[in-house]
């Protein structure tokens, strides 16, 4: 953008380091072995190719999709807090499709599951879009409530219509091999969903600026009145499309998770991915490249936090403290930079 960008990026890195230091100070005062935790964090996230592939990148996959989903909505000025619900809807739909397609070859099953996931997520988001256009209910509230409904609905599905054949466990039947995304590297957990997510980001990077729809969404998000006046753009329409598209992408995230990682629908499929995705999207400045960086960062942080728990007994919740601190550090950068520049 401007020549200030490198300096801002440098400042961001400094803020991240500061956040990590604060987190270390908190842990130390709580009596934990900070050095051991640090080493474990590093090893678990980036210490080996296996850590990178099976832990960090695998965990980054849902963040890539969901960060992108949130960004698509936010870019058009729609506060979609409901990526979590759309993720669950997409996951449930994909599993239902996959189970129904048992016996079919993967070349048929997987595209069907993908379509089902996208449709499921889009449909769940469409409820919020409809509530907006028909009843003027703000998306920030409706999507939030729809998350709660979705969580309980999945609980119902895995105990009712979608319960596994023995009717013992609250989970769906297990997807047959033909309905699973193959793994990317033999023996590792990274699956093709990661590549799909990268492709989605690349496609988004192009379509955000290269297509009429992406361009309109950007204009509406930045300045609705100019978009309407100079661009003759229907702001309401663009926003509804953005929300539904966002839901579809979140639904694909659900598809990727159930077909690539869990192979079944479970309760607790998402530990609040949709909320973290807001942080991913905003940290990534709503840009696909930024989202890739932020998603991999979150993936690494979560993978590292698990390792720190395994090796140093640090509670997993520490990851969310660190994540919060890092986000605060990074979001402050532009303003600090501005004040810094004004003073000098």
């Amino acid at each position, binding site marked *: *953008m*401007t020549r200030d960008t490198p300096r801002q990026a440098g400042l961001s890195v400094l803020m991240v380091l500061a956040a990590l230091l604060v987190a270390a100070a908190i842990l130390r005062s709580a009596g934990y072995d900070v050095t051991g935790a640090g080493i474990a964090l590093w090893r678990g996230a980036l210490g080996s190719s296996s850590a990178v592939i099976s832990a960090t990148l695998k965990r980054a996959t849902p963040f890539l999709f969901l960060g992108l989903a949130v960004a698509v909505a936010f870019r058009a000025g729609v506060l979609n807090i409901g990526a979590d619900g759309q993720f669950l809807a997409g996951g449930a739909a994909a599993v239902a499709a996959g189970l129904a397609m048992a016996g079919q070859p993967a070349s048929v099953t997987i595209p069907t599951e993908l379509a089902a996931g996208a449709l499921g997520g889009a449909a769940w988001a469409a409820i919020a879009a409809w509530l907006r256009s028909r009843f003027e209910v703000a998306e920030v509230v409706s999507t939030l409530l729809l998350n709660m409904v979705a969580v309980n609905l999945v609980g119902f599905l895995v105990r009712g219509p979608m319960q596994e054949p023995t009717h013992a466990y609250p989970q769906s039947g297990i997807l047959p091999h033909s309905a699973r995304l193959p793994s990317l590297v033999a023996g590792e957990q990274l699956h093709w969903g990661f590549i799909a997510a990268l492709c989605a980001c690349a496609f988004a990077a192009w379509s955000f*600026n*290269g*297509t*009429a729809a992406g*361009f*309109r969404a*950007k*204009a509406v998000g*930045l*300045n609705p*009145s*100019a*978009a309407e*006046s*100079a*661009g*003759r*753009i*229907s702001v309401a329409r663009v926003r509804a499309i953005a929300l539904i598209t966002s839901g579809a992408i979140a639904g694909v995230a659900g598809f990727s998770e159930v077909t690539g990682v869990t192979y079944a629908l479970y309760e607790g499929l998402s530990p609040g991915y949709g909320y973290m995705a807001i942080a991913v999207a905003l940290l990534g400045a709503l840009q696909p490249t930024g989202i890739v960086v932020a998603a991999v960062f979150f993936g690494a942080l979560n993978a590292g936090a698990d390792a720190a728990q395994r090796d140093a007994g640090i509670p997993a919740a520490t990851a969310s403290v660190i994540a919060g601190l890092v986000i605060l550090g990074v979001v402050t950068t532009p303003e600090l930079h501005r004040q810094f520049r004004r003073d000098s």
Partner: protein
Amino acid sequence: MLLGENGAGKTTLLRIAAGLDRADSGRVIVGGAALSGLRGRPIRTQGIAVVSQHFSLVPTMTVAENIALARRGTIRRFSPSRAAPEAIEAAQRTGLAIDPDARVNGLSAASQQRVELVKAIATDPRIIMLDEPTAVLDPPDAEKLFAWLRRFVSGGGTAVVITHRLREAMTYGDSITVLRRGRIARITDASVPSETEVVTAMVGEVPVFRVSTPSRSAGPAAASAPVVLSAAGVTVTRAGIATLRDVTLEVRRGEMVGVAGFEGAGQADLLRLFTGMVTPSRGVVVAPEHVGFIPEHRHRDAMIGEMSLRENFRLRDAGDLRGVIDWRETDARTRNAIVTFDIPASDVHAAAATLSGGNQQRLVLARELDGDPPAIIAENPTRGLDVRGARIVHDRLREGCTRGAAVLWYSSNAEELIEFSDRVVACHRGTLREVAPTLPAIAAAMVAAE
């Protein structure tokens, strides 16, 4: 009394004097003490009340609430039932009528202006600064206001009034300061000069626009050209207030029609009639599908500062775009525009906000003129531009006209209108009439009509 054409710096001067903005250099002295570090701080403690041209009313609140907002205190009691009589009482001091229970967003501009005035007065200021207070007021209300201002001044207060209206300034002012292009053009005792003297000081005598020689279209030939824009018996009503009344206008192919008028006289809606942004409540409007439009409020309506030049260029009719955007083509056109319109931008990816206001305007102009639209509508297109910038605007509009477009434009600068228009119409309180393209005639149409 502070006079000057649009963009002369009146509002800026007033905001700095009131401590709302910070000056790049120099000091503001109020009552012998320098006003400093006041940006964003309570100016009310200095006893200064400001009524801006852009209303600072909360649209979703009632009139009484807005008036009470100016009062000091935190847990000081505010009672809607008592605020109403208090507001009426304050209003009665001036004789201006307000409805305390009405919501501001449902009020006409004139009513809002009354509320804004009452709000300022209700705080018992020592100094009151008014920016174009009568632009939207009815003449009787304007008279009431000035009558109160005279009483206020004779009671020891100080009033600074920005106005376009010469009569007002000369009738009610103690002294008149004329600003032109950010400089004081003339300070005078109100009773001394003649109207024309002041008008000349405002709009300037030097023929700055004569740098280029406009090639006027042949008048009689144009008369037989087909009508491109037409409005017949059009009335526009907003929130119950008619902004245009029974207006009829025709602009022909290759003709450039200038519109004169003070702010709020109705020209804004007149121009937007032909872009489809305003729909008439009565009458018939005919306009081509594709109209180039240069609105006055660039940042609100015309461009998106965070977007790049090419994106802003592409913004036109983005609502109808389909599929993939051909950026190479847009880039080519944007680059072409950068060259033709002399926009000092390194490349098409630069953010529009990095351009100066004048260059932003050129960008908007370039976009709207791109593709040779059959009609061009421009709203005060040279506002805030320097001589060279203005020249480019004039040249382009004129070029479009020569090419065969119908051009309808409004300018707050009468001299400019005369210089470049084939015909001039004057807008006054929603009505339109054709005037002779001379400075006195236009000034008269704008002033004498009152």
